[in-house]
């Protein structure tokens, strides 16, 4: 059973992700943010329920749709906004942007613009944990589209063969860009299972379902039980990236899935959340808004990286040129 303090944290993180994204979405639509951005909306429960089972020492490897993972793993909104605006004080000094946010102090090994590239990297972090016997685990977030990439299969197999403390957290939102996923529910989990690890398919809109699955997977990993796969089913709320008009989707599909599966609403309606006070939640909401507004102001007024920054950090001991 989760304590109230934990439930508040769960709410707060989900809401923070939601508000963060809605806000940057509005900014993006006004042309104020560069690059591609991908909305995590409707998937918030997955990142938050997973990461609540992790410490800062545990690792995650994220995807192109990474904002939710970052926030759930503890990256600050301010750091992220500075990076989304590609400012010099950004967490990647503006060189990474939305699709490459990383924060080693939080065990966040990076969003990734190459679909399917995260799992081998997460396997490496799990190998570190296994080698150093530090009890840490490593999580790879993987889209349904990404699950087809050969690299993901390779990572699944390596995790089994080396018995790595690792979780494959699939987020099945049925779409890869503009193309509908032809896989039946549970297929991705089954596939991972066939590599020889326990696997389960759950409702990704249900915080508690994800939390329970994550908890036992993380425990298994910490106890030397090896890798686990979790497939979480969710709808995709917005287009693939901001600006995608989704002509390829039926209006009804979008509408009904939006209505039916708001993870925050579902969370609040769950009897297990009964103990949360309206007041407290309102306070949190206000705090969140403030956090984002302050962060955004800071980000907009921060300085651009200088010409010299183009050449730094290519190598440790000398510059690119």
């Amino acid at each position, binding site marked *: 059973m989760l304590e109230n303090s934990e439930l508040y944290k769960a709410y707060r993180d989900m809401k923070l992700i939601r508000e963060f994204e809605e806000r940057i979405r509005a900014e993006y639509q006004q042309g104020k943010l*560069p*690059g*591609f951005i991908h909305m995590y909306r409707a998937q918030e429960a997955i990142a938050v329920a997973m990461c609540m089972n992790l410490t800062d020492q545990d690792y995650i490897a994220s995807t192109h749709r990474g904002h939710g993972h970052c926030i759930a793993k503890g990256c600050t909104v301010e750091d992220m906004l500075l990076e989304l605006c*590609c*400012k010099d004080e950004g967490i*990647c000094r*503006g*060189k*990474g*942007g*939305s*699709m*490459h946010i990383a924060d080693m102090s939080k065990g966040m090994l990076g969003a*990734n*613009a*190459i*679909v*399917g590239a995260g799992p081998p990297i997460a396997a490496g972090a799990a190998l570190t944990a296994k080698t150093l016997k530090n009890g840490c685990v490593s999580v790879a977030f993987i889209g349904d*589209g*990404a699950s*087809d*990439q*050969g*690299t993901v299969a390779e990572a699944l197999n390596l995790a089994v063969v080396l018995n790595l403390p690792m979780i494959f957290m699939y987020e099945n939102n049925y779409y*890869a*860009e*503009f*193309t509908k996923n032809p896989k039946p529910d549970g297929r991705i989990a089954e596939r991972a299972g066939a590599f020889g690890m326990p696997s389960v398919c759950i409702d990704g809109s249900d915080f508690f379902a994800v939390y329970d699955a994550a908890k036992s997977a993380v425990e298994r990993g910490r106890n030397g039980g090896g890798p686990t796969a979790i497939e979480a089913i969710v709808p995709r709320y917005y287009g693939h990236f901001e600006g*995608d*008009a989704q*002509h*390829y989707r039926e209006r009804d599909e979008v509408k009904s899935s939006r209505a039916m599966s708001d993870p925050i609403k579902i969370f609040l309606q769950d009897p297990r959340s009964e103990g949360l006070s309206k007041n407290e939640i309102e306070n949190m909401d206000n705090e969140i808004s403030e956090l984002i507004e302050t962060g955004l102001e800071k980000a907009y007024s921060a300085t*651009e*990286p200088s*010409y010299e*920054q*183009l*050449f730094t950090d*290519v190598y440790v001991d000398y510059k*690119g*040129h």
Partner: protein
Amino acid sequence: MAEISIREAINKTLHQEMARDQSVIVIGEDVASKHSGGVYGVTLGLSDKFGSERVIDTPITESAIIGAAGGAALTGLRPVAELMFIDFLGVCLDQLMNQIAKFRYMFGGNVITPVTIRTMIGAGAGTGPQHSQILYPLLVSIPGIKVVAPSNAYDAKGLLTQAIRDDDPVVFCEHKAIYDELAEVPDEEFVIPFGEARKVCEGNDVTIVAFSRMVLFAEQAAKKLSSEGISVEVIDPRTLSPLDDKSIIESVKKTGKLLIVDEANPYCSMASEVSSVVAEKAFYALKAPIRKITSPHTPVPASPTLEAFYVPSVSQIEDLARELSNY
């Protein structure tokens, strides 16, 4: 003749070639998507016209896409595969480098491998370190592949037509920052043979060899310099492999000065390659050091501010060409 964009020229060429030859298929991620035609709309309308049997949406599995295109080419089709961004070469290079490129040689000349791979290259669109690379030098180094990079809509049509009809594997590099550039393009089918450079403008003082988007920059620089009385010859090789050495050498023999502009990272680039060709074969014509402008030896930064520093600029080209003209 109507002015159309590079995007439209490619789209029309795909329509034309698919209508002309039943064995041409299009395969890739989101290529069949209705109303969108891929992320940048290049394949719009193809699936409506030719159906899902010939315009094939695939899972996100580039090795399978490129490999299947290779296998299909060996057995009688003429696949046009899309590698959405050239940056994704990393997940499918083997099928291109060790399979498709080598089939004909390894198999003693008993096969043809008519694959066209369309792919997007280049920075300037704020797409960050993993979606903005040039990477064609890597392909040029691989025997068995032909590499094409059009800088305008006319060339795009003629070269893509040739690519699809060519019996060898061709990688067709589309710079995402110039998709909307307009030019007059005939409606009729035509091909531009590979290995023939285009003289973008004539000049006597300095030769500039430039590739893809950099051709546009070089042209701008040349215009500016011409107003200062400096006469620049701009050459667009159009095909990187095979490379039209002859036209380059001929031009350098006239001007004695060479500047190469390539958006790729500097080392082992096309800039290096062209320089080395001239330093070997037109050495005595040279009146000044061979100069190169490339992006730096750094990844492409996400920051638009840094990205603008990253991409070679028209003023850099002007400065160096001016400097060369003063030798």
